[in-house]
């Protein structure tokens, strides 16, 4: 059914830490690797070695530059580069589900995962139009809609060692920037992390109520801080020989006078 469940027993989802993400794209590759070999149609690449390569990905990492507004403390704050992984947010009020004419898209009552039943998908693309996050991509070869499954074939998979029973992107992240858990449980790792660090929703004005939360990055660079040393070694690193001697010294003074 393409109507949304009123309530889901669990709210499985991810916390993505924008403070920690280093933009290595390992999650992108492990996601594509796992999901092209397991549940559902493979994630195709077209013209992979040609002039115009393109492919289906369920997770993509963007990079954004943020230029903080100057303040009296920080008259010329450094711009910050923020890597930004983006996949399905498994919204509570998922617009992609209700627009589906065939019932192929659905949100699971037991855990809140938004899935596509590929054998029912007619490939009309309307769900991708309805998603503000670009989380759904029509596969160019299979002609069905592909999206993040929260690795539904890993998290409940008793053939895998317990440590591997989390989404491939979370399992692989070398920086520990991705966390998986149940948001319906206020004591879960993800609920606590999100509460502690001010987890935020993307595009809250779209009214989708995303389950996945993003942790805002902390300010990092303090190069332009006016007071204090930037390093305890700084006094020892005072530049020496500021005044040129000999011919260069004469040239410097002469040019000054002109």
């Amino acid at each position, binding site marked *: *059914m*393409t109507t949304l469940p009123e309530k889901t027993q669990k709210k499985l989802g991810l916390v993505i830490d*924008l403070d920690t993400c280093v933009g290595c*794209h390992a999650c*992108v590759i492990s996601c594509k690797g796992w999901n092209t070999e397991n549940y559902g149609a493979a994630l195709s690449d077209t013209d992979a070695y040609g002039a*115009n390569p*393109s*492919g*289906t*990905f369920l997770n*993509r990492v*963007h*990079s*954004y*530059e*943020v*230029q*903080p*507004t100057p303040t009296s403390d920080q008259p010329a*704050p450094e711009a*910050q580069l*923020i890597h*930004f992984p*983006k996949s399905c947010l498994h919204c509570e009020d998922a*617009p992609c589900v209700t*627009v*589906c*004419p*065939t*019932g*192929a898209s659905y949100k699971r009552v037991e855990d809140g995962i938004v899935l596509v039943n590929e054998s*029912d*998908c*007619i*490939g*009309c*693309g*309307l769900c*991708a*139009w*309805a*998603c*503000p*996050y*670009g989380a759904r*991509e*029509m596969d*160019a070869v299979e*002609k*069905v809609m592909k999206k993040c499954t929260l690795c539904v074939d890993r998290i409940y998979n008793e053939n895998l060692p317990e440590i591997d029973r989390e989404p491939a992107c979370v399992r692989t992240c070398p920086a520990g920037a991705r966390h998986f858990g149940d948001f319906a449980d206020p004591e879960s790792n993800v609920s606590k992390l999100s509460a502690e660090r001010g987890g*935020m*929703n*993307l*595009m*809250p*004005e*779209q*009214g989708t109520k995303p389950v996945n939360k993003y942790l*805002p*990055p902390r300010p990092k660079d303090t190069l332009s801080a006016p007071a204090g040393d930037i390093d305890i070694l700084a006094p020892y690193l005072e530049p020496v020989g500021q005044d040129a001697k000999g011919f260069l010294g004469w040239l410097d003074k002469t040019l000054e006078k002109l």
Partner: protein
Amino acid sequence: MHPAPSVIFFTVFSGIGFGLLTFLGLGFPAVTGFTAFAFFAIAFLAAVGGLISSTFHLGHPERALKAFTQWRSSWLSREGWCAVIALITMGLYGLGLVFFDQRWTLLGLVGSVFSVLTVFTTSMIYTQLKTIPRWNSPLTPVMFLSFSLAGGALLSGQVTWALLLLSIAAVVQVLLWAQGDGALAGSGTTLATATGLGPRGSVKAFEPPHTGTNYLLREFAFTVGRKHSQKLRLISIGLMAGLPIVLLLLPFSHIFAALAVASHVAGVLASRWLFFAEAEHVVGLYYGKR
């Protein structure tokens, strides 16, 4: 949005076809026999041709029947139902007129209502999308309906109605363009809200996820032709309403009527191309595009 020819063709011709069916169902013009056959043939050709064309953009058209299952929640599914009901009732109504010289008034009335509902449900597929602020407006269904009825009046030869409805369609079109131009900015969705980084400062897309293109960019970040949108708007509205109105005001001739129809169809095609090409999907913001 990528202006897919199959979808433009579908919305334009099914709009005109169901518009004509609406008038035929109400008994305008009150034709029977061979003349009725000609009118119904044109209407069915446009409506069914448009619907068939819409299946060309499906990845798996062989599963299209499944689209009838979700009418409780999906406008696309409701559109399928309305179209089938309208075509069946109008088919029977037409049968009576063409072969039995009978006007089954109630059947025609039901057919007309469902023809209008088909166009309305089509428009709601676009109107419901909050992700495309330009379409997410009550004016979108008004535009689809006024275009469909104006085309129907023109094709059914109802000159007075055509003059009135073409003028209304032109006004609605101008209002929709004017409102649409500020829709993305007015929606409150920006790169700042999309990334949640707004409170930290001004956000700029630094590097896209891939060096190549992808489905999202092909489907949603279509910017070609926006440069000429103002000129195209003038051409579109001139052909859609301006020229047909002038031709209708001239003394009646079949050549003028045919020209008016051809001009109207060309204008609606241009307008529908712009409807898609000018629509900005919010996902483009993630790529620093609109």
